[in-house]
């Protein structure tokens, strides 16, 4: 039984190898070579692309990307935890409906939703019409940091709510009742029982929000209006506009290293509890 299962996994291993390992290897090769005269065949080993990355303007871009991803994660957590808490407390039928409402927007293309935000936040948009009616002067926050942050939080919040929600509904109610029985206040129960038990979900949520946020490029470009160059935009530009695949690959590798470091950090905190759960509900 075990053996045949093993054999069944071969196609998937092959698939992983072709679609993940080989491309990763190619990116790595590109990042440490330079192609002479536009010919991608003749390689020349070099670390120049990595050196090139550590220029002041690129460091500022990286700095800003991490800051934005960090803010997005914090806001998602602040907004997402109470939301997940509320959902986990209501009766099961309504629960499914509300979870569906959270997932539903993800069926619509992300670009489309971001364009919608452009229309909502713009000077001749819905918000400004609304403020005009109640006679408040609204200059529009489109193409500012706040607009980008709103777009990011809006897009990534389901990835925070859902894992936290799954850990919260898994918590045994007896534990909470026991805490009350032993004289813990509501605050104490939350801090000492509920929050620690939901931490795996929080960690998963943070990873699921931070990783795509740090490398996103479409939302900052649409809502930040061109002057918002982040690490994702920088990579996109190297491939799409400048045709400099080597430098683009080097940036991608650097970003990957940063992500792996932060993942290891998160995993460390996760291991301390050694409790399962916190996966996505689907």
């Amino acid at each position, binding site marked *: 039984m075990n053996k045949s299962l093993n054999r069944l996994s071969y196609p998937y291993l092959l698939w992983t190898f072709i679609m993940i390992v080989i491309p990763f290897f190619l990116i790595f090769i590109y990042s440490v070579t330079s192609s002479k005269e*536009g010919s991608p065949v003749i390689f020349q080993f070099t670390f120049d692309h990595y050196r090139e990355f550590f220029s*002041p*303007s*690129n*460091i*500022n*871009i990286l*700095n*800003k990307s*991490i*800051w934005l991803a*960090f803010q997005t994660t914090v806001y998602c957590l602040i907004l997402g935890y109470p939301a997940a808490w509320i959902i986990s407390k209501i009766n099961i039928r309504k629960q499914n409906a509300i979870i569906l409402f959270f997932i539903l927007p993800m069926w619509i293309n992300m670009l489309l939703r971001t364009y919608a935000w452009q229309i909502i936040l*713009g*000077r*001749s948009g819905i918000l400004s019409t609304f403020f005009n009616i109640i006679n408040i002067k609204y*200059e529009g926050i*489109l*193409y500012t940091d706040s607009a980008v942050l709103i777009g990011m939080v809006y897009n990534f919040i389901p990835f925070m709510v859902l894992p936290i929600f799954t850990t919260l509904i898994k918590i045994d109610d007896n534990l909470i009742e026991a805490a009350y029985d032993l004289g813990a206040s509501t605050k104490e129960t939350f801090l000492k029982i509920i929050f*620690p038990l939901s931490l795996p979900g929080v960690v998963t949520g943070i990873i699921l929000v931070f990783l795509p946020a740090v490398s996103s490029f479409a939302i900052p470009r649409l809502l930040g*209006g*061109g*002057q*918002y*160059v982040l690490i994702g935009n*920088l990579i996109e*530009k190297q*491939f*799409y*506009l*400048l*045709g400099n*695949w080597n430098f683009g690959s080097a940036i991608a590798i650097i970003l990957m290293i940063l992500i792996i470091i932060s993942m290891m950090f998160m995993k460390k*905190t996760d291991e*301390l*509890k050694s409790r399962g759960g916190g996966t996505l509900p689907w």
Partner: protein
Amino acid sequence: MKKIVCCMIFLVVFITLSSYPVQAEEITTLNVYNWGEYIDEDVIDLFEAAHPNVEVNYETFDSNESMYTKLTMGDANYDVIIPSDYMIERLIKEDRLVELDVTKLTHYNEISNEFLVKSEVFDPNNNYAVPYFWGTVGILYDTTKVDETVDSWSILWDETYKNQIFMYDSQRDSLMVALKLLGKSMNTTDKEDLELAKNKLIEQRPLVYSYVTDSVIQQMISGEAALAVVYSGDAAYIMDENPDMAFAIPQEGTNFWIDSMVIPKTSQNIDLAHEFIDFMCDPDIALRNTEYVMYSSPIESVFNNVITEDWANNIAYNPDGVIDVFGGSIETEVFRDPGDFITEYDKVWSEVLAPKPNYLIPIIIGAIVIVAGSAYYIITKKKKSY
């Protein structure tokens, strides 16, 4: 058992074969690569109707640079592409274009001579390129918000229009504005000039509402900002949709550009590509295109035909007597390919757009992570002591 296997094999073979309908005639695909919003798409249907065995595969790009990357990096076989002057110069230098056979172009003599002469800047002897549209770059402004006369690029540095300015998200065009304001050439290969232009653009950044590309058209039609740097054809279109808008070509000079049709060497259907180019030069077809996208046509009869229309009287469509090409006083320049120096332009433009340094950010993040980590450590430690 054998019978079943035979039947299965027969079935599989039958299904695979039957899903490929036997074609009576060979269908040729013509791959056309053009700027976005740059053609009346009905024209493609007309071409297909005139050539029953031809299917046109029409794709668009949003900048010369992305077109170049796709053309050289990918394995795409385009038959006709329509880039701008300096990009054509680069493609000629790199020997990527097919020499045109002018005898196959029956409508070639419809093209005004002045554009062929001007094209010689980037295509000596007119061997490779057939002009498609031409124009300038200028300032589009909202007359309800701007009272003064607009005649200089310096208005884009005016504090009163803070957050009311759209700049073009393209390194050549934006650097052109700064270089012209400084009285330099837009084709400069002097690092000091570029440094000055960079500082000028960084100085302007706080005033800019957004750096945009084609989306400027919709946003200026709905009046999102007071000033915008736009291509002349887009200006004509916007003014046609929103009569409050006006167009000005600054006195310091501007860019005069020609987008032309060329055939890359990778083309599989060179004859058919010639036919397509010739078709686009047909006055009836060119008229449809110019009326649809509102860019100025190099076909003489079309230009004269259109000039009676409202929008065509504007200098955006018809800068006759305004720019030096048509006997005016404003000096214009055609973009040239700077060769390897282009990396300097790339670098300067990324530095303009790069965010300001902020050393507080890593400190704040570090502090929060350390505090959260140690708080967590203390909590878990306590638990163990129970």
